[in-house]
């Protein structure tokens, strides 16, 4: 499924967090969102799934404008978010967390199958299914969070701060998983990742957000070669 954001404006009280943001995730695409802290990346993701209300604009999933819908309706239509800081349900086991991911679904029979599928993508989860999510390491938690979002059977997956605070080897593992999910399942993905080099290397297109505005966009390889992007985000001169 494709997701098209047009002219999105979001305000926190009097201060505007997003200004006329336009963004497109093509069907089956992997898009990265780049920007400094406070640029509005998390706000944009939360607004797309409905955790924050927008002032104006549109968020069109395939051909439905979801901006006026409740979050649970958007999940049913195929949107899922891996939130920043993972937001796992700490008092529930990993398996229960995964099952909650399937909460909005109506096809009960397929849920067990999808659970196995998620475990097949991330075999590390298999041995910790009955552990409490609060007792996991950071990498395990992030896998659980990604698995939980996949259990919603999304057509468009938003991943906020994929690797915050994780070891490089785990980060590569997660990036690889997302790429496989993107290719094998055809799930469109929008990813926020602090390692811009990695983020641009796995995505086809990218958007750069600065103080709430999209200041640059294009194919990831073009952006990688732009001097201003290199200087600001890649630490190269």
């Amino acid at each position, binding site marked *: 499924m494709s997701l098209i954001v047009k002219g999105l404006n979001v305000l926190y009280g009097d201060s505007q967090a997003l200004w006329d943001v336009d963004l497109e995730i093509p069907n089956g695409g992997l898009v990265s969102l780049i920007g400094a802290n406070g640029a509005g990346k998390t706000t944009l993701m939360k607004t797309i799934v409905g955790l924050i209300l927008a002032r104006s604009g549109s968020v069109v999933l395939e051909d439905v404008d979801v901006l006026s819908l409740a979050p649970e309706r958007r999940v049913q239509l195929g949107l899922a978010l891996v939130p920043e800081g*993972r937001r796992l349900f700490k008092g529930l086991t990993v398996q229960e967390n995964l099952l909650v991911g399937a909460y909005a679904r109506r096809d009960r029979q397929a849920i067990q199958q999808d659970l196995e599928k998620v475990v097949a993508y991330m075999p590390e989860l298999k041995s910790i299914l009955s552990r409490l999510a609060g007792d996991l390491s950071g990498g395990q938690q992030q896998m659980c969070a990604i698995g939980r979002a996949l259990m919603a059977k999304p057509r468009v997956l938003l991943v906020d701060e994929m690797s915050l605070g994780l070891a490089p080897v785990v980060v590569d593992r997660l990036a690889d998983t997302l790429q496989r999910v993107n290719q094998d399942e055809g799930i469109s993905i929008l990813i926020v990742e602090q390692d811009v080099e990695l983020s641009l290397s796995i995505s086809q297109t990218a958007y750069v957000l600065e103080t709430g505005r999209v200041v640059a966009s294009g194919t990831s390889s073009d952006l990688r070669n732009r001097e201003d992007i290199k200087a600001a985000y890649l630490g190269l001169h």
Partner: protein
Amino acid sequence: MTAYLKKYGAPLAWASAALIVLAACFWLDNYWLRVWTSVLMFVAITQGLNVIVGFAGYHSFGNAAFFGTGAYSAAMLVMAGWPLWAALLACSLVGALLALILGPALLRLKGHYFAIATVALNSALAELILNVGGLTGGAQGISMPMSTLSPIDLYRQVYLLMLTGAAVATLIVFWLSRSKFGYAIRASKDSEDGARAMGINTTAVRVAAWGLSGAVTAYVGGVWAYWINFIEVGSAFDVSLSVKAYIMLLMGGMGSVVGPIIGAVFFEVLATLVWSKFGALHNLILGVLVCAVVLFIPSGIIIPLRRFLSLRKQEGAKG
């Protein structure tokens, strides 16, 4: 044999416990029958509280509002000529409705604010019933007609009605501990944003949880009204009832199925014994005990108990 025990052990234990409790009303004397009736009442109230506090994480200190509402609606319906069973059913529905109507507004509040709002709700309802007069009897309360049953039969009937409440409340909690809806409630407690992003309507889920809590609490309120025959605002909307149930929940262990039962039995039986032996010091002793529990086993009796049982199991496996 052990595999058989593993599979059927827990249901068998539950079934035999239920049978013993059911049969108990035929050999207990009047005094202990009353004590255990009160224990069962508190099991139901504590399980009701467990739903909203232990599972949903909303600390209601005003669940007595449901108790009082249940007591008054049952009493008024019986006075209007309804049969007891219908009045009890209706009063449970009134309790649920009260929670469903007020929940969307009150459950927006978090933490202390919600706790205080529930206490305010309790006081407001008490004032309302006091001042409406007429059907509610106002300050004079309601005297219900005496039952035609002999005292022991009446006590047995009330015991069984309370047992029904306690059993249904426990079944609800058991269902929550392993159903999709239960996961949704606990997920909303652990992470509001995470739950909403997963497609859970957190407000609706919480309101429904409070509705269940309200229904079981109102039911035992109704049975209580029938039991003591005379109700008035002070005793029906008694905040100390909520506090007592909260202590029992704390003692037993929040969010577990067995915890509230242990807490209610332990505290109520203990309170009765302490009261009969040390009348004057009764509150002091209970207070010290509550402090001790909160200090040394803040997660409730259930946790050390579980550890003890699992240790014994391991030793048994070795031997």
